Structures are given as structure tokens and as C-alpha cells.
């Protein structure tokens, strides 16, 4: 609904009210749909959208007279799968997922004196399935690849080093930085490995930890991490107990549920969040039973990423195949006084959900918020890296229960 209003407003302005010298009386009306889609035309415009579009750099700040940050788009030419902010400076790392030999990359974009610009690029062998900023060096990133390897990208050197990997045929689906020296990798066929980042030696391994397959991994503490599975299970692994069996299993009780992404509250690691293939964002409290404490479905299509905003208690970001990026304010929901024991268990309504992606785009594959500010970066199937602000949002229509 929000995107339709935006598109109509912008295009009506272009078509009706502004005329060039000598232009004849316009007979053009409002946007109508093509090919059955109700909101917007398909084709070229759907991919690019009415945004401040540029191939190269552009200022991140102050595109409007009031000084508010407005949406900025950088076109990369390749489908972008992941994005993460580096905590040093204003650098965002993106990974592509074209899949053709030599076509994929890891890039670093930095907001410098000349605006946002490409700072580094490194060819990546295979699709980038996951990026995770390391704990020791906040300027480096762990990359999980479709070729089964986990690599460390060193921003200072613009170089990539291999950390570890999985047997041939199994992709590295997710990676979680546990400590300065260790990282956990999750394989697409369910294998788990805890590896030393510097030496690449695996301190613990397990084949087929989640037999059907793993889609994502997330750090909980320095000793444990969680994996989200295609089977609808979240497996929690405690490195102190070895990897012989999960220390705990959480479950989403819907048939054929696929969990596509996972994150946890760093301050309250018993709260784990997942996005599903049916547009749901699900929350578990590990102290309680195996089933979720809440599930909300504001997305129309797969949820590709969920990010708990560690600098803002009770806030979460999600993005999905429907092209939307949502901010969730659980704290505000809890303050409505609906009896929630803790804010993560508060019942969400449309009042607490806001749409951040104001332009027309294809699926949004990943989202991240800068640890020290309001800047949000997200990447899309439209081959774009987009920047926006938490303050630059529209309230959603009521959520369908």
C-alpha cells in the first residue's frame, strides 16, 4: 500500500504538473498496473524506480532541504545477497550471488569526502551466502561461500584468506564469529565446524548436524551459536559440550516450514529470531519450551534477513522477497501495556511496524543497521545497494493476522 502511494504521487507529479517549454497540454493520467500487478508497472521502471539513482558516488547525508537523510541507491550490476556494516568508520561490505565463475565479489563501500564510493573490491569464488564482521578486528569480515569455504576478508589489505571449509559438494551456508579467534561455520547439508580464524584448523566438527540442511547461523555467546534449518528447527550448539548433539532444539510447528535467517539479541541471548519462507518473523525464548513465543507475518513472501538492533533495545529489522524493509519496535508495543513480561514478547500491531524501503525494488536480500547510528543499508535483487535512515519511514497498513 505504501509503495503504491509513493509511486502514484511521484509519477503524477512528473506527468501532470511539470511541463517543458513548448510542451502540449498533457493528457496523461495516473499510473495504472501492467501484467496483473496492482501496485506498479513492471519492466524497466520496476527495476530502477524513481530514486536518486547513480552509478557512482553520492552524498549519504542531506539530500533534502531539511537535512534529513533520504534514500540513496548505488547500482552494482550484480545481484547482491548480503550486506554488513563495519564498525570502523562508515563502511558497508556487500557480497554478490551471481554464481558465474569470476562474477562474484565482496565490495566495501565507504562514505567519504566525495560521498559514498566503492573503496575495495575482491573477487569471490562462488556466491556469498553470509557475511559476519569479526570480533577482534572490526574491520574484517568472514564470508561463507557456495563453494564450501569460509574466508576472511581483510579490509585493510583488500585481500581474502581461507579460514576453513566443508567437504566438496556442501556449501557454507552461514558463519558466526564466536570470539576473536574462533568462528563457527554451518554447511548446507547440516555439517557444523568450529574453526580457528588464524590457523584455519577446526577445533570441532560434526557432519550432518542438521540433516536436511542449514540456511543460516548466528552467534549467541562466545561459546554457543545457533543454526536455522530448512526443516523448521533451530539447533543450539554449545562448544563446551562438543558438537556431538545440539544442546537445545527449538521448533517452528508449521508443516514444511523453512527458516531462512536467524539472529539473537546480544544483550538477552535467550531470545532468538528467525525469518521464514512464509513471511513470518518468529521469536523464541530459549528458557521456555521449544515452540515460539510469538510469530508475526507482515511480509508477503520469504523473509531473507532479520537483524536485532543492538544499539536500540527492543528494535528489529527485517527484509524480504516482497521488496520491503521493516523496522519493528517491540519496546513501543510493550509500553502499550498489553501485559508482556518482556518487550520481545509484546504483541505487535501495525503501529509498531514501519516501512523503510520507500522505493520500488525487487526482493531485498539482506539488511543491516550501523551500530552507532540510524543508517540502514540493504541490498536487493535489483543489483542495488540502498541506504536509508530509521527516521525515513512510513507506517504500514494493518498487519494481516
Amino acid at each position, binding site marked *: 500500500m505504501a509503495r503504491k502511494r509513493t509511486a502514484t504521487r511521484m509519477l503524477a507529479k512528473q506527468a501532470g504538473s511539470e511541463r517543458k517549454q513548448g510542451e502540449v497540454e498533457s493528457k496523461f493520467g495516473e499510473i*495504472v498496473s501492467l501484467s496483473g500487478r496492482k501496485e506498479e508497472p513492471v519492466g524497466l*521502471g520496476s527495476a530502477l524506480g524513481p530514486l536518486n*539513482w547513480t552509478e557512482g558516488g553520492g552524498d549519504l547525508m542531506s539530500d533534502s532541504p531539511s537535512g534529513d537523510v533520504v534514500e540513496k541507491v548505488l547500482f552494482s550490476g550484480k545481484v547482491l545477497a548480503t550486506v554488513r556494516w563495519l564498525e570502523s568508520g562508515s563502511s558497508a561490505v556487500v557480497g554478490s550471488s551471481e554464481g558465474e565463475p569470476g562474477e562474484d565479489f565482496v565490495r566495501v563501500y565507504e562514505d567519504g569526502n566525495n560521498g559514498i564510493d566503492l573503496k575495495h573490491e575482491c573477487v569471490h569464488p562462488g556466491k556469498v551466502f553470509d557475511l559476519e564482521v569479526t570480533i577482534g578486528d572490526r574491520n574484517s569480515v568472514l564470508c561463507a561461500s*557456495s563453494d564450501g569455504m569460509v574466508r576472511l576478508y581483510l579490509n585493510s589489505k583488500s585481500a581474502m584468506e581461507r579460514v576453513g571449509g566443508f*567437504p566438496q559438494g556442501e*556449501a557454507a551456508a552461514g558463519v558466526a564469529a564466536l570470539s576473536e579467534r574462533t568462528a563457527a561455520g554451518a554447511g*548446507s547439508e547440516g555439517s557444523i565446524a568450529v574453526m580457528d580464524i588464524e590457523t584455519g584448523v577446526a577445533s570441532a566438527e560434526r557432519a550432518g548436524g542438521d540433516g536436511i*540442511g542449514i540456511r543460516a547461523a548466528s552467534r549467541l555467546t562466545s561459546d554457543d551459536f545457533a543454526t536455522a534449518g530448512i526443516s523448521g528447527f533451530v539447533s543450539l550448539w554449545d562448544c563446551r559440550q562438543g558438537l556431538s548433539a545440539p544442546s537445545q532444539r527449538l521448533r517452528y510447528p508449521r508443516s514444511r*516450514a523453512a527458516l531462512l535467517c536467524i539472529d539473537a539479541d546480544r544483550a538477552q541471548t535467550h531470545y532468538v529470531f528467525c525469518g521464514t519462507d512464509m513471511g513470518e518473523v518468529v521469536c523464541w525464548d530459549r528458557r521456555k519450551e521449544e515452540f515460539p513465543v510469538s510469530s508475526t507475518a507482515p511480509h508477503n513472501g*520469504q523473509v531473507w534477513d532479520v537483524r536485532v538492533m543492538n544499539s536500540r533495545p527492543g528494535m528489529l529489522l527485517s527484509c524480504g522477497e516482497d521488496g520491503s524493509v521493516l523496522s519493528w519496535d517491540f519496546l513501543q508495543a510493550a509500553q502499550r501495556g498489553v501485559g508482556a513480561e518482556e518487550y520481545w514478547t509484546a504483541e505487535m500491531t501495525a503501529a509498531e511496524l514501519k516501512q523503510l524501503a520507500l522505493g520500488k525494488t525487487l526482493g531485498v536480500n539482506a539488511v543491516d543497521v550501523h551500530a552507532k547510528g540510524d543508517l540502514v543499508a540493504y541490498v536487493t535483487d535489483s543489483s542495488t545497494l540502498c541506504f536509508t535512515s530509521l527516521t525515513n519511514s512510513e507506517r504500514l497498513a494493518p498487519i494481516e493476522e
Partner: protein
Amino acid sequence: MSVAEKSKSYRAVIQECIEALGKEHNPSAQHQQLLDVVTEGHKILWFCEALYFVDESKDSALSLLRDWLRVHDDGVDQAVQSYLDGGDDTQFWQVVSRLAAIGRRDDATELVQTRIQNVDSRAMGAAALGDASSSEPIYVAEAALLDAPPDTAEARLDGQFRVWQEECIATLEALEVKSGDDHLGLLLGVLGGQPSALQKSCRSWEELFVAGYLYTRLGGDPADRRKRSFEIASAFQPTHKALLALADSNPPEAIVVLARPGEYFYSAHLADLRSDSVELLLTNSFSEHQLDLYMVPANDQKSLRDYFVSEYALSLETLRGTVQLSADYLLSCGSRGEEILTDILCRMETQSAADPAVEKVFALSKRLSPKHSEVVVRKICTRLASNCAAIGNSAGATYWFTRANDAERAVAQAEASLTSAEIGGCHSAGAEALDRTAEAISVCDNAQIQEKLDYLRMYSELQASLINADEESSAARDAASSASALLGANGGLPEAHWGVVVYDCASILLPSAEASAEAKLIGIGKDETYSLLKALETVSASTGAHRDSLLEGLRQRNITADPEQLLSTVRLKLMRNLALCILSEN
């Protein structure tokens, strides 16, 4: 939604792109080329909309055509102003010819008459000086312009326009014989619709196009008109030739001419618009060369539109992220488009279940008909299952074969997993893998296969119970209960596995002890013991190759022991246990 609205919608999207592209600072050559292509395409669609979709009246189309040109002004007014600011004779005739060519004959006439007034003033002086011949061309020009019939479609269609044009040509021919006045000849050539004159007078392809339309299209002999169209078209780029074809009421040719490999956007959308407004028939105006290039069935009126829309969709499909846009277009092309989309989705790179492309393909497949959707799901799931099987992930293989609705291969994978667990025993990695396989079956939401492989779940539960059966009597009882259920009439466990089940359960029982001690530690109840004995006798009673297959599991589990001896030992244990059970009851 009307065709005009649809066309406006297309153009609005393109206009957005033009505006966005135009904001680029220091554009590269490639960027500028892209902007030019998009801008020209916008003109084409706008022209088509003005000519065919907004109003059926040709008069309206003529005025809209002139307005269209006015929007894409290429400096005509500046040229006029430049002449008025002190231009010479040559400039005058160039401006007049140009104005006449683009349909602004009133402006051309006004200029001519203004000059006549000035010339007359001078002529009066010149006459006084004895020179009265210098004003003749301009009077001829004025007469030609004033003699023009109304600039309407009716005047063109009923022959008035053609008659007037012939008079202009006749005057031109007379002049050429007489004085070879190039300036006046140019104007007369324009008015007469001479392609060479039109080309000389116009400064851009848009002006030439409008001129060609105004002076060569409507009315007159079709063969002659066609001949003159070709002459003008020779100076055009393919894009512009399309406009000529459109103006010549030959949309299919326009659509075909617009198409270039990898650039089907305009052909696709123009064909889509035309198919909505009028029947898009293949006409005899196609050249043989063009028909060779595009082999579309002549009897299928929609096929030209579907062909170009699907070609455009295929060009989008090469960009990995825009496959859903391809899907939108292909799904508008009927059954053929659906087949193409099915093929695209089946070919998408999906080697790993962790790849988001897998879910994206599944989501797109839901937009297909059930038959095609099943084909895609089956293809993708089978590929994933084969990958899992290749690396020994039986749980994953079972799950994906089940999703593919391939019961036979799912069962085969499950059986392989069970065999591995059987050979390894309850403490083996095979047992863990079997547990995962059982879980995979439980979540795959296929009732038929779940029912068929339910024994797998029970076997997994049996093995889980056996792990602690030595130490916990409750675990032992659970194991016995599971075994009894597996071996029952409805258990479903293939006979080939009975031997090992009986052997494992019998292993719970103490090997030998005083009767009183055993009586206190009965691990298996009477009914369960009886079930195990019955299964044991089934195995024992078998003969030949069948017996060998039933004992194979035991052989694999206990490589050094003789299976027959194992059967005897098991029988003894079970018999003793049964006796103890009966004694304890009494």
C-alpha cells in the same frame, strides 16, 4: 484498463527512467547511448499512442503529430528567430521549407507574406528604377502555400491533397526547365512530397518522420506511396523506420523492424499495445527476409505479440535478479509463455539447499499451473536430493525426494539409511543419520510417504531406546514395545530387517544367570517376547536365497559369528524369557 491508459503507463515508467538517467553527472558514452535509446523509445510509444490509441480520428492524429513534434522541438523556432534577426535569402527559404515540411504551413505562409510585403515595398522602388522581376519566386511560393487544401485527413483521402501536390510538382518541373531556382524548387519539392526535398529541409529524424507522414502517407496511389516511403526510409535508422511503418498503418512491420537481438523492449510493448487495440495480423507487407527471421505461425493472430514479449522476457532472464520480471511477461503469453517459464525455472542454478535461489524458484513456480508447477518442483527437488545422496546425506536426500513426490527414490534412500543404522547398531553414526532421516520424513508433509515409511520412525525410536536399555528397565520395555510394533502385521518393517531387530532386543536380556535373579530382571514382557519369537521363527523357517537375504543383516552386524548360531542363541534367550514371564504370572 484501456489501451491508451496502458500506453500512458508504459511511457510514464520510461519517463522516470529518462529523468533518472538524465541526472548523471559526466555520463559515460555508454550511459548516453542508453539515454538516447530510452528517449527514442519514449518518442515511438508516444507517437503510437497519439496516432492509434488516443483518438481514432485521423484529423486528431495529424494535429497530435504536429504537437508531438513541437514537444521534441529541434530548434525550428530558433531558426525562425535567427532569420528574423537579420537572415539572408538562403536562410529565408530554408526556414520556409522547413516549416512547411513539418506541417506548419500557416507559419510558412506568414513568413512568405511578410517578405512579400517587404519585397513589394522594394519592388515599387525597383519598378520606379525599372527592375520588377526579382519578386517572382516568392509569389509562386505564396500561391502554392495558399492553394493548399485544408490540412485534414478528409482532404488527403478524397484526393484534393494529391491534386494540389501534383500541381506543385508540375510547377517545380516548369521551374527547373525555366530557371532552376533551387530555393523555390526545394519548397515545391517539399509540398509535392518529394523524398529528397523532405530530407534536405528537415534537420532531424523526427522532423523528417513528420514530414514523411504529412506528405507521403495518406491518400494517393498505394504503390507510389510505398515507393516514396522506401525512399524516405533509406535515410532512417531502424528505430525511425519503425515509425514510418506505423504511420503506414503497418504495425507488424514496425514491430519487427524495432526488434534487435537483445533489445526487444519496444517491440514487445508496442506489440502488446497493438494486440489490445486491433488484431495483430501478419500482412503481406512483410518482406521475405523479415519472415525468415521471425517464423511465427501465420494463423495465430496473437503470436507476434507473444513472440516479442517472450523474447524480451528471455533477455531479462539472463540478468539473474530479474527473473521474476521475466515471469510476469511470460505468464502473459499463454501456454507457450508458461512452458518457457517452466524451462527457465528448471534450468536455474540450484545445487545447494542453502541457496536462496531455491526458495525464489519455488515461489515463482506457484504462479504456474499445477502441472507446470509440479514439473519445476520435481526438477529442483530431485537435483537437490541427488546432491545430498552424492555426499552421503541420506536425510537430505530422503527429504528432497519426498518433496519431489518421488516415493520410490525416497523409500530407497530411507532404506539405505535404515540399513546403515542396522549394520552399525544403536550407537553408530548410522543410527544418528537414521534419526535425522526419520525427522526429515516427519516434516516433509507428504502423508503417503510418511505412512509408507512410518516404520523408519519406529525403528529410530527402537534404536534410541536400545542405547539405554542395558541400564534402564523402562528403556528396555520401550525397545521391546517398539520392536513388537515393528514386527507386527501392521508394522511395515521389511522382513529383511527382522533378524537384526530380534537380535538387538534379545541382547537386552541377560545371557545367563540364576533363574531367581533373572526373574527379578525380566526385560521384555510376555507378549513382546512372543512377537519376537514369531518373527524369529519366520526367519528360521525361510530357505534358500530368501533365507540368505533375511540373515544378511545379522551377517553384516556380526562379521565373525555364524548367523545360524546367533539365531539359536537368540531363540534360547527368548524362550527362557518367555518361561520366566509365565512363571512370574503364576
